[in-house]
């Protein structure tokens, strides 16, 4: 598959003092704000009255109100939030538990079948979910997993497993071979090597993978709306429920979205820390 690039370990960073550095930094700030603007707008809209939210031209100065947030909580936000946390967290954990050993095996015990295995794993994601809605519904009803949290966790795990396998295999394979050999020479078993050596060195990759897996589960809509009803609905279903074809809903929907993003951004912020530290790859030895 992908060539394992030989790279030397990074040494701790020294601050750069290049000309044009200030310009680049300012550019970065501007771009970051531009990129973030629609998200900011969504959050702002959550505090507007519906009439302000639908106003054209867009209203920048307005009197804030919390009425949308109370509508969100009245609509049983907490239950949907709870479901989503369990689904996203549970499926990510399960995908990691299954996927890390698999990634380890594909990276460090490759065989001539490895490319085919990887291709097949990826191919499980090639069927557009929308084309299999009825099959999913029929199967889940038959095995009694329809509208259950367990059922959704199992499903999302299957959706995230290829991501975990592919990404972690890449990060694992990128580690210098010598470290691994040094460890196995000492007679360490797989679990030891994984937890004591490999994972600490790939914490950033792990954090990125876990974050992506959580986000994909958090925002998944089509399967959630079709396989859940009153019991295991998730936040995307909850948010879409604010849409109506007869009435204004923009502000309430923004409030629901803000309440849906906030926890993820918080978690992301925390994951950032290990991303930041680990992404500089720390000392190898």
């Amino acid at each position: 598959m992908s060539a394992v690039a030989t790279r030397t370990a990074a040494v701790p960073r020294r601050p750069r003092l290049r000309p044009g550095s200030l310009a680049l930094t300012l550019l970065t700030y501007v771009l970051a704000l531009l990129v973030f603007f629609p998200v900011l707008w969504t959050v702002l809209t959550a505090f507007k009255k519906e009439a302000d939210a639908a106003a054209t031209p867009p209203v920048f100065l307005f009197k804030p109100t919390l009425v949308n947030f109370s509508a969100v909580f009245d609509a049983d936000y907490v239950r949907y939030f709870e479901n989503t946390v369990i689904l996203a967290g549970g499926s990510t954990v399960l995908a990691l538990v299954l996927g890390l050993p698999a990634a380890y095996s594909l990276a460090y015990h490759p065989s001539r079948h490895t490319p085919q295995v990887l291709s097949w794993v990826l191919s499980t994601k090639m069927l557009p979910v929308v084309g299999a809605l009825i099959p999913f519904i029929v199967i889940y009803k038959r095995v009694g997993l329809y509208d259950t949290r367990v059922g959704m966790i199992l499903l999302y795990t299957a959706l995230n497993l290829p991501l975990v396998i592919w990404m972690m295999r890449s990060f694992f394979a990128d580690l210098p071979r010598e470290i691994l050999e040094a460890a196995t020479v000492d007679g360490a078993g797989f679990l030891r090597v994984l937890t004591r050596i490999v994972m600490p060195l790939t914490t950033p990759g792990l954090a990125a993978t876990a974050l992506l897996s959580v986000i994909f589960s958090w925002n998944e809509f089509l399967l959630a709306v079709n396989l859940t009803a009153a019991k295991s609905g998730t936040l995307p279903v909850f948010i879409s429920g604010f849409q109506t074809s007869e009435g204004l809903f923009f502000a309430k929907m923004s409030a629901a979205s803000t309440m849906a993003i906030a926890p993820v951004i918080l978690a992301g912020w925390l994951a950032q820390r290990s991303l930041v530290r680990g992404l500089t790859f720390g000392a190898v030895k």
Partner: protein
Amino acid sequence: MTRPAAEAARGRLAFLRSERAGGIVLLLPALAYLVLMTQAPFVLTLWYSFHRWILTSPDLSHIWVGLDNYRYTLTEDPIFRTAVVNTLVITASIVIGSLVLGLAFALLLNRTFPLRGIARALMIAPFFVMPTVNAVVQKNLFLNPIFGLVNWVWTSLGFHRIDWLAVHPKFSIIAMATWQWAPFMMLILLAGLQGISDEVREAARIDGAGPVVEFRRITLPLLGPYIELAVLLGMIYILQLFGEIYVATQGGPGTQTTTIPYYIYQTISQANDVGTSSAQGVVAVILVSIVAALLLRVLTRSFRKGLTS
């Protein structure tokens, strides 16, 4: 690997203790899980694709029609053909666009500067928002023909006001999705960039290489595996793009932004046609596999060539 027949028994024992066996044991749970969870729905989809089943007409359900759904989809249905072309165009554009943007962001964020953490968080934020919500915001805020911010900027530059979603639907969808997926690319590429050591860079600079040469000869090749990963994974996800089209253009005007996933959605939710939508799904799998295989070949060839060591 061939083993002499006489040593088979001993060989088996040795095999079980060997690395190879360990490797398979580690792999098996994940593979078994995937087989269990994904193959059953796929087989059922395949099964339905050979039948006629209209959800709202119970007398038209579970009728065997063999390959008729495939025949229609591949040879007769003009919309499916348009959908294939649209899917390729739109997906390629988004993947390339978000890759370039993601790479640019990653390069910018790879430096040290004050408030770097905040800048990084702001740049990742779009990816956290549900695609349909993003689309609603962008449709109303940016692309509104009268008061959208895009038109506000556009007309201040002296151009005529444009109804973006009606006149340039593909471009609008591509722009919205690129914005959403750039952080995905950025996350992966940043991980790769941070792994390129300063020593290698210093050596290049001492040799007199400017930033452009450094980028082409060192950064890009070393990023190769990560670009490959990002493009492949991104393509698989972006091919299934749905929310933006659903909210902003409903596949139109006409069929200009009807992609395969959106068309399948219309087939199952509008025409209530399980048979045809299943056949379309299966055809989609075949198409995606072909594209992915081609992509993989192109990528590995170009990056294997560019490696410096």
